[in-house]
């Protein structure tokens, strides 16, 4: 490996929106460089998980070292494949920090999508060279020229820098490799300095322990070296180093500028966290910037469908998390659902993928409760501060929500969302965003008929069904992506669900006091309409020449005014959430011998109510000699079932009712 001088090394990633052809391009590059054989079976070689191939996303970063001869020189091109979704944006950013350039793949038919934008900015912020690649030019409806213009417009990259290819057919793929060599600089590294290696991914192997994927910024590492993690300060002895092609291939040494793997007797992926820096024992170096521990943004309860499956599920979760240190696991139990866990995920897709992997790889079926986000509370009560030993606490479980009198303010996580949509749907999209308490940051036409909108969203407004709503109102054309944008103050309240006055602990929910009607107020609609009219007054061509940025302050201003004028705005958030829970409970609570009042309450104020009427008649009409056996059997079975019901006060609540209320509602 030492034969490659740093000048002949290139480290790059491919970034793209889902389905724009990232993995197919990777397959072609691997074939072209002889890394893998050219067969028909090379379909998304780097996507190793079943979920990845099925959903067309990359969950785990994969890496391959390619050898390529060009103009008489042999080059080592390290392709660092990134996770394909911003849920994993931290991992993406770590992968990118091991690179000097990226291939930004855009579908010639679909054009720039929200994720393209998010990925571009990650690369841009990391100051990487960006090579735009317009893929799928073989498609009938491909319009590479228009996409070229979009790229000019949105990313400020001259159109002639775009490489137009068909990864599927292999058209122009060779040009991509050459561009990597020409346009991406070699890594700035020093072999003579002491070792400084970035961990950009890690996996767990049952037999060999943790396999850390590393990029060497300085120095050399070989078998037998003692290395230290800058994060854990633990010392490990290196057992094996090597390159990935894409399977592990042992080597004697890894040199600065190279990318490869390292095995050093680590027994847990938390010992080689993504973003960590490794250095030689007794030769400490300045750690590489940007390390963060994974921070879960979405929490959900996970319970076995049947308690007898608890242990199986437990071991399945353990096996999966051993490879994914970004999932946090806390034991939890619910009176209704039994013993389970509260899991923290990086985002919604991460959660879905985890759940799907449980089902596919471990054959475990689970109850997943509606996801919640980590709220924060700044405490004012001296006693609570003492109890928690900190002033600002994160609330993961609604049951631990501190009351208003003990709190200076509540905070909620927000994200910066990017939406790209054909402009015919702009009105509807804006309406949807408004209903989700989003604040518009800007809006530009990226070409003749497509609009890019940026909004600050409260995270909890998008965790459940935002994406589905967006897709359905835009006939599938709008795309959405988001990135973490910190916390903002929020008016949060705890909502109790009562059955005949008794609180149902497992249904306590944190909701927003803020009013934001789902359908939008009439005034809000008018405002959107007039803004759209104002926009459409401008000739498109002119609009294309410069971005029609809209400052958000006038929007939020009128928004506040609107609020002042309508203090008790119709159907606020708490109402609609409360009503929905009450309705779902009503549908799933069996009638009993007395009337059941189902109420949603904030403090002592009832905000929604449903009633389950008492049984007026429940008795078998005909019961003579021939009916007794059957009737007794039925009664006993019912009585047996009744024993398993959870009692709230004197009301029997079947487990199903809780599941229906708590479960993620995907069938909206």
């Amino acid at each position, binding site marked *: 490996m030492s034969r490659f001088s740093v000048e002949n090394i290139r480290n790059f990633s491919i970034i793209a929106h889902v389905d724009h052809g990232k993995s197919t391009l990777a397959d072609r590059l691997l074939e072209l460089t002889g890394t893998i054989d050219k067969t028909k079976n090379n379909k998304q070689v780097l996507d190793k998980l079943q979920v990845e191939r099925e959903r067309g996303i990359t969950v785990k970063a994969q890496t391959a070292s390619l050898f390529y001869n060009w103009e008489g020189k042999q080059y080592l091109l390290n392709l660092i494949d990134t996770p394909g979704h911003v849920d994993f944006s931290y991992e993406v950013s770590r992968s990118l920090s091991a690179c000097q350039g990226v291939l930004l793949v855009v579908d010639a038919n679909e054009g720039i999508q929200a994720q393209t934008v998010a990925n571009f900015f990650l690369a841009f912020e990391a100051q990487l060279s960006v090579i735009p690649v317009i893929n799928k030019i073989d498609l009938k409806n491909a319009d590479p020229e228009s996409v070229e213009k979009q790229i000019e417009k949105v990313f400020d990259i001259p159109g002639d820098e775009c490489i137009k290819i068909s990864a599927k057919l292999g058209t122009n793929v060779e040009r991509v490799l050459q561009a990597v060599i020409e346009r991406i600089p070699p890594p700035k590294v020093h072999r003579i300095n002491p070792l400084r290696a970035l961990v950009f991914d890690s996996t767990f192997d049952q037999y060999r322990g943790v396999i850390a994927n590393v990029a060497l910024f300085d120095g050399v590492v070989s078998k037998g070296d003692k290395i230290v993690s800058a994060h854990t300060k633990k010392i490990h002895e290196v057992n094996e180093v090597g390159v990935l092609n894409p399977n592990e291939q042992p080597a004697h040494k890894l040199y600065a500028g190279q990318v490869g793997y390292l095995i050093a007797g680590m027994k847990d992926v938390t010992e080689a966290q993504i973003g960590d820096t490794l250095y030689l024992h007794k030769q400490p170096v300045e750690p590489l910037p940007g390390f963060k521990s994974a921070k879960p943004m979405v929490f959900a309860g996970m319970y076995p469908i049947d308690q007898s499956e608890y242990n199986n599920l437990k071991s399945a979760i353990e096996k999966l998390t051993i490879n994914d240190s970004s999932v946090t696991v806390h034991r939890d139990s619910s009176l209704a659902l039994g013993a389970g866990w509260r899991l923290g995920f990086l985002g919604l897709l991460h959660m879905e993928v985890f759940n799907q992997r449980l089902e596919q790889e471990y054959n475990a079926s689970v109850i997943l409760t509606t996801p919640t986000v980590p709220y924060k509370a700044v405490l004012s009560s001296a006693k609570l501060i003492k109890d928690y030993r900190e002033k600002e606490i994160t609330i993961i479980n609604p049951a631990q929500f501190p009351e208003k009198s003990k709190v200076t303010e509540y905070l909620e996580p927000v994200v910066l969302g990017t939406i790209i949509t054909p402009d015919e749907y702009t009105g509807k999209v804006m309406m949807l965003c408004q209903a989700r308490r989003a604040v518009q940051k800007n809006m530009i036409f990226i070409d003749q008929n497509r609009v890019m909108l940026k909004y600050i969203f409260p995270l909890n407004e998008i965790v459940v069904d935002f994406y589905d709503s967006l897709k359905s109102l835009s006939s599938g054309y709008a795309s959405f992506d988001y990135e973490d944008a910190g916390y903002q103050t929020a008016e949060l309240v705890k909502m109790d669900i009562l059955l005949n006055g008794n609180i149902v602990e497992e249904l306590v929910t944190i909701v927003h006091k803020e009013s934001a009607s789902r359908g939008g107020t009439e005034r809000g609609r008018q405002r959107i309409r007039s803004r759209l009219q104002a926009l459409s007054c401008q000739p498109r061509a002119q609009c294309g020449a410069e971005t029609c940025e809209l400052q958000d302050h006038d929007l939020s201003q009128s928004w506040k005014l609107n609020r002042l004028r309508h203090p008790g705005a119709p159907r606020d958030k708490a109402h609609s959430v409360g009503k929905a829970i009450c309705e779902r409970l009503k549908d799933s609570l069996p009638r009993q011998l007395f009337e059941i009042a189902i109420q949603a309450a904030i403090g002592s104020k009832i905000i929604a109510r449903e009633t389950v009427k008492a049984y*007026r008649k429940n008795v078998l009409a005909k019961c003579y000699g021939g009916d007794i056996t059957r009737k*007794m059997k039925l009664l006993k079975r*019912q*009585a047996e079932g009744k024993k398993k019901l959870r009692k709230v006060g004197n009301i029997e609540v079947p487990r199903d009712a809780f599941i229906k209320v708590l479960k993620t509602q995907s069938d909206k």
Partner: protein
Amino acid sequence: MRSCLVTEAQTLLGLSGVRRVDSVFFGGGTPSLASPNTVAAVLEAVDQAAHLPADSEVTLEANPTSAPGSRLAAFGAAGINRLSIGLQSLDDKELQLLGRTHSASDALQTLAEARRLFPGRVSVDLMLGLPAQKSGPWLRQLQELLGYCDDHISLYQLTLERGTALFTQVQRGTLPAPDPEVAAEMYQEGRALLREAGFRQYEVSNFARNGALSTHNWTYWQCGQYLGVGPGAHGRFVPQGAGGHTREARIQTLEPDNWMKEVTLFGHGTRKHVPLGELELLEEVLAMGLRTDVGITHQHWQRFASQLSLWDVFGSSQEVKALLVQGLLLLDHRGLRCSWEGLAVLDSLLLTLLPRLQEAWLQRAPSPGQGG
């Protein structure tokens, strides 16, 4: 068929060791299609094998026909002394919906003829809770029926049985599903109307005045012994004639051909006989007894559970107490019974009472020789 019925009746009576039969009920399917001679032959056999007193209740289930007169008289001559008419509705459209071949006028004619032949011993039944049926018109039907009926009425809520035409229609959506709320209202209003008309609701679905209760059905609810004769018939008795001491639940073979073969070969076509445990019997005593207005008297309970009184079982239970407080159930010096409101929701009450009985049974001081 006739000789098989006779044979099986004789065999089972012998097996039971019963010496006197208080009631006979020809029911299930369409027994009025059988000939009066068959009825006479069976009754003759019963009287021979055991004693059938002259005042025993002998009921025939009959469907209305257009010319009922002579045939009913022939059944009377064969020994029938009580008639239960499957009238079901006084609305021709509803009768059609129910798949009945008779008309409302057939029904009234049959009823009039029956009353002439068996005065004071005729029962009619009326269906409620049909698809799209409204409470008001149904109550008017009941009112009309009160003008024609004798001293016994049964009110039945329709249950959609899989495999019937009605079930299919509801399934396909060509008919609306019956609304349980409306059915509940009909039931409540109907029983109130009958009470005003001087009828005693002596069981969940059965109403009688002038003491015209059905002795035969009463036996079921009191967990008396009964033999089931004929294809698919159910019985519950102690086979004392064969030296048995345990009450058995018995079912005869359902398919007529097989049943006949078995009767010819073995004298009876019992397909299944399951001994009932003591607790199981008590559960039946509870579930059946509470269907009646008198409920379960202490005396009655003692006949089945000498070691465990009603007070022992239900006296200290908080859940039962809640039902008493709610006024759905009564437990007093007479025994345990449903209130007027409670009777309508008995199946819900039993879901509290049955587990309580099981619990008390398991906790009782075990007495020697008693099994669970």
